[in-house]
């Protein structure tokens, strides 16, 4: 008995994300970026120097929003059980979910980073650096979101627990990503890429084990 392949899993996850509220994290991202000038004042020089970091804080908080719909609905509805019966490994499910989540989260976020950077008064060069850093960091962020979603699926108040779990784990990404955005040079970008790859490589195993352990 052959189950749905990886491509069909990814297509399904993308379809569900797009027909759901994929725009919500993006609206949230822009909202947080907009709050910064209100909070620190319209001083262009100050905004320019903290803008790259502010974009990253906005991206991290936006990454929290979709967590509750990444794994829990399929766990509660038995889809994860049926996939296991069809011979699809939990790790494969997690890989498909990371890919689909990145596809629906990162491109809109990168698009939204352009108006976000203008709100924060970033120069075109700083915007370019921020976009590259976000592009390198978002796979790690997507993978982390899936792993945390699998770990917290089925818990009461999962959203709050997920935030407390995800934000500390995202700190390495934040450090190197913000440094790469703020003109920290190529070594910051390389380290950010290394952290992002490490998370992408490890997250499917964490998520797969969490899905298995969560069965009752």
């Amino acid at each position, binding site marked *: *008995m052959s189950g749905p392949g990886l491509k069909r899993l990814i297509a399904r996850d993308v379809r569900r994300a797009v027909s759901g509220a994929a725009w919500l994290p993006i609206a949230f991202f822009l909202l947080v970026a907009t709050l910064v000038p209100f909070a620190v004042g319209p001083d262009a020089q100050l905004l320019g120097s903290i803008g790259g970091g502010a974009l990253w804080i906005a991206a991290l908080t936006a990454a929290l929003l979709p967590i509750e719909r990444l794994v829990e609905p399929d766990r509660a509805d*038995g889809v994860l*059980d049926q996939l296991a019966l*069809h011979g699809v490994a939990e790790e494969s499910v997690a890989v498909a979910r990371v890919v689909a989540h990145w596809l629906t989260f990162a491109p809109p976020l990168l698009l939204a980073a352009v108006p976000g950077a203008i709100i924060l008064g970033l120069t075109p060069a700083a915007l370019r650096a921020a976009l590259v850093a976000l592009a390198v960091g978002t796979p790690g962020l997507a993978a982390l979101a899936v792993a945390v979603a699998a770990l917290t699926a089925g818990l009461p108040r999962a959203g709050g627990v997920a935030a407390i779990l995800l934000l500390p784990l995202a700190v390495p990404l934040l450090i190197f990503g913000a440094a790469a955005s703020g003109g920290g040079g190529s070594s910051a970008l390389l380290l950010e890429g290394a952290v992002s790859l490490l998370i992408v490589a490890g997250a499917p195993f964490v998520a797969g084990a969490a899905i298995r352990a969560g069965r009752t």
Partner: protein
Amino acid sequence: MKPLLRFEAVTLRRGGRPLFERLELTLGPGEALHLAGPNGSGKSSLLRLAAGLLRAEGGVVERTSVALADDALSLDRELPLGKALRFWAAGADQAIEAMGLARLADVPVRLLSSGQAKRATLARVAASGAPLWLLDEPLNGLDGDGVERLDSLIAGHRAAGGAVLAASHSALNGDWARLELGQ
């Protein structure tokens, strides 16, 4: 002949309480077993054990590939029923017809009644091609026509060399071996 499902001295505990200990069970081609017992006696857990979704505390569970119909619908609510079922089995059309769902194939899953949803989960099992069917309360919500259709599906599956393990409080039609849990 090699059995489709075999439990050898299987022990399962839930929350520190033993549900069953050293349970022996063998299901060969064409056989059907009716699991009975009071609420909480471990019928659903036994099915999940047989499906490989739970691990036994002790003993050995051997099985072929299985299909499970339980309370979880596992169909995308926003899709039409036919499309949602074909996600799991490309050749689901025959099973859709057999469970009398053909005229609902274009209706979104979220609009189905509970009886229609039950028929849909049974159609998924029938379409799976798995030799062993695990059915958790298959009669819940089914009307007379649904029960008849299920009976003929099960009869056809057994005639083709398949096996069925069903947990149910109600009597099942046809010739079933019976295992009473919680005694």
